[in-house]
């Protein structure tokens, strides 16, 4: 009996060992098994996969995709969503891309989303593929800069954007009326068409007990997307554009005078200012900002729909944008092409994006149609102003230049580290030192000015 128990126990342990050691062995064992399985697929080039994997960092595009794109029968769409906080999205995406060649066909990334701040990193690599190879040709209705952003150094285009992101100043009409005596977009624009005038309005707003902006970083993109030189030069030297320095000075001034808050751009403290009870006059954002950041303003009870208008503000700029990139190794090329077409050249879908979602689509035909339609106005959040017409004007000036693959860490890192200076926990030198330290940790190849 005892022996039997001992044998049983030993057998159990052995099972444990085998189970333990089998796991790590599983992956390499799969790879050779995978290759013969690949061959029948290669014999029929038209064969398409059954699973379409999309990597994204939020649900924004997923919502539009599910509403306006009809997935071909028999294909399962698999969303892998990782928030971009602290670079988590890119880390996850990078791991998957580096493993792309070894992954099973159904696990391969077919399409992934990328933002303006780091699109170059993927476009300039072999992990994205030439979209002309899958039969997609960029249409003349697409905005030039969206194509340039998705093209590598040789001009090979790797993806499309479903939106165009000219950004404006979104202001509260009631507060503008109180501060400037007018809420008419033309007059408000005239009152703040330079940064000097904008600062003067901020002082006026403060006198009346209002805030000009609700985040220390609110105006950051208006400056940073107008930079005349990239963050890092050809020899990997970090350089501060005068626009960045100007933003730091302005924010310094705004914090000292109480024109703004120490909250970050995405913080609840800032978005709470969009409620009816909010005291903030201006927000900076493109069309995606409505759905993405201004839900408080659209709250049926505490919101203030119709109390908003947009103007160009002191400096035209663009902010963000989501590009859809074709991943090398995708086995669903037909569906990829289909998705690209749906969200760029399909005027029906683009029209719905404007009419139902308040978006600014990447299709000049649709944009012109709305911009020239006297009956069209945004009542989703604005007072019925034709915002498409305003954005259409701004979109003409967007240029894609001075971008580096380091932009996300540098733009967000600078904001985060300086936030500690603006909220009073450290002095400016220490904040800058912390910023340099962050760069040193993340990209040791960048040469810092102090070193």
């Amino acid at each position, binding site marked *: 009996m005892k*022996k039997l128990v*001992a044998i049983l*126990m*030993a057998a159990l*342990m052995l099972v*444990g*060992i085998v189970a*333990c*050691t089998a796991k*790590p062995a599983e992956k390499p064992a799969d790879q050779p098994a995978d290759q013969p399985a690949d061959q029948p697929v290669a014999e029929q080039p038209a064969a398409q996969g059954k699973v379409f994997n999309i990597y994204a960092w939020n649900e924004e595009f997923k919502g539009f995709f599910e509403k306006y794109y009809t997935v071909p029968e028999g294909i399962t769409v698999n969303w892998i969503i990782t928030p971009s*906080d*602290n*670079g988590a999205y890119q*880390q996850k995406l*990078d791991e998957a*891309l*580096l493993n792309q060649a070894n992954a099973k066909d159904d696990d391969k990334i077919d399409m992934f989303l990328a933002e303006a701040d780091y699109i170059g*990193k*993927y476009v*300039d*690599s072999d*992990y994205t593929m030439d979209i002309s190879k899958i039969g997609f040709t960029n249409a003349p209705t697409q905005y030039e800069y969206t194509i340039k952003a998705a093209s590598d150094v040789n001009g090979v285009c790797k993806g499309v954007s479903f939106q165009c992101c000219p950004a404006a100043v979104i202001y509260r009409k009631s507060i503008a009326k109180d501060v400037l005596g007018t809420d008419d977009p033309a007059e408000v624009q005239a009152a703040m068409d330079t940064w000097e005038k904008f600062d003067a309005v901020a002082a006026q707003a403060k006198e009346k007990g209002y805030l000009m902006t609700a985040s220390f970083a609110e105006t950051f993109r208006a400056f940073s997307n107008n930079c005349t030189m990239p963050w890092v030069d050809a020899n990997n030297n970090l350089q501060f554009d005068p626009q960045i320095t100007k933003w730091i000075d302005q924010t310094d001034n705004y914090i000292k005078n109480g024109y703004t808050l*120490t*909250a970050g751009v995405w*913080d*609840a*403290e800032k978005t*709470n200012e969009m409620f009816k009870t909010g005291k903030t006059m201006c927000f900076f954002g493109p069309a995606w900002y409505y759905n993405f950041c201004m839900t408080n303003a659209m709250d049926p009870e505490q919101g203030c729909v119709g109390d908003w208008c947009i103007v160009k503000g002191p400096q035209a700029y663009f902010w963000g944008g989501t590009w859809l990139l074709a991943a090398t190794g995708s086995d669903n090329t037909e569906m990829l092409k289909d998705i690209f077409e749906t969200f760029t050249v399909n005027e029906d879908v683009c029209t719905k994006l404007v009419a139902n979602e308040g978006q600014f689509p990447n299709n000049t035909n649709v944009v012109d149609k709305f911009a020239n339609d006297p009956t069209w106005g945004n009542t989703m959040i604005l007072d019925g102003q034709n915002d498409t017409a305003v954005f259409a004007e701004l979109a003409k000036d967007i240029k894609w230049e001075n971008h580096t*693959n380091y932009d996300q860490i540098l733009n967000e890192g600078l904001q*985060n580290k300086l936030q*500690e200076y603006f*909220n*009073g*926990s*450290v002095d400016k*030198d*220490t904040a800058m*030192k*912390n910023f*340099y*330290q*962050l760069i040193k*940790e*993340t*990209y*040791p*190849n960048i040469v810092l000015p*102090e070193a």
Partner: protein
Amino acid sequence: MEQIQTGKTKRKSVSYAKWGYIFIAPFFIAYIVFTLVPQFLTIYNSFFETYRVGLQQIGPNFVGFDNYKALFTPDSQGTILILKYAANTMILWIMGAVPQFVIAMLLALFFTSYRLNIKGQGFFKTVIYMPNLIMAAAFSMLFYTLFSRVGPIQALLEGWGVIDHTFDFFAIRISVRSMIALMNFLMWFGNTTIVLMAGIMGIDQALFESATIDGANSVQVFFRVTLPLLMPIFVYCLITAMIGGIQMFDVPQVLSKGDGVPNGTTRTLVMYLNGYLKTKNLGMSGAISVIMFIITGGLGAIVYKMLSAQYKEPKKHRDRGRNVQ
């Protein structure tokens, strides 16, 4: 055993020793594969420059001790960051561990006291263990939400007029550190209580009784009887807690959004290491790991030496006592 062996001679040939090895083999195999080999790889990698810029791999290039040198090079304001973060880690751990051990010891004494004979022990034990079951990240997120600029605590204190609207819990060193210490304390005191209770219950009750009969008060019983006999378990608890403390990561990481606000004063060693892992910088993060390994080993040895020396002392007393009898 003897009887069986003499009864059936055949069984004499069975060597039970090998079963022992077979039973412990799974642990050693798992240890070698998942811990020992990666440990050596970490040390190996710490001598290389290896990281990624975007999707492009830089290195690995052998650089000798350059990574260690870089870690101990002072920055422009003369701070050696790794020392600063090591100090942060120790401060955060001590702030949480002192109340953790004091409260856990008291609770363990109350629960095991035959005099108090507390009812509903199962309930209390479950309750004090409960915070440990929550994910540290979720617990941290809860605290972040509670104390954030738009959170209920800020609103409450503002309503009472204690603070004004510019007050920020996360801009003050002591408040962020206290929050982290409090969370670690709440999460771990239950665990320590259970282990210490097990230790106390392993002590012969007759010793407590005889001490009481000899006229020792409860303080004397604790310091002269319970503590010396509990020392091995206590040292074990302390060393494991310290190792856990050195590796503190999730609570401060989530609470300070990975930045160790304010000014990196709540950034721990593992958060520092994690910063380098963002770009798969195995060289620098390997060097930090090696330093942490040395710190952990050193501190473990010191604590063990100090405390085990102490608990050997009373043992002699006890032996002497017996001899007298």
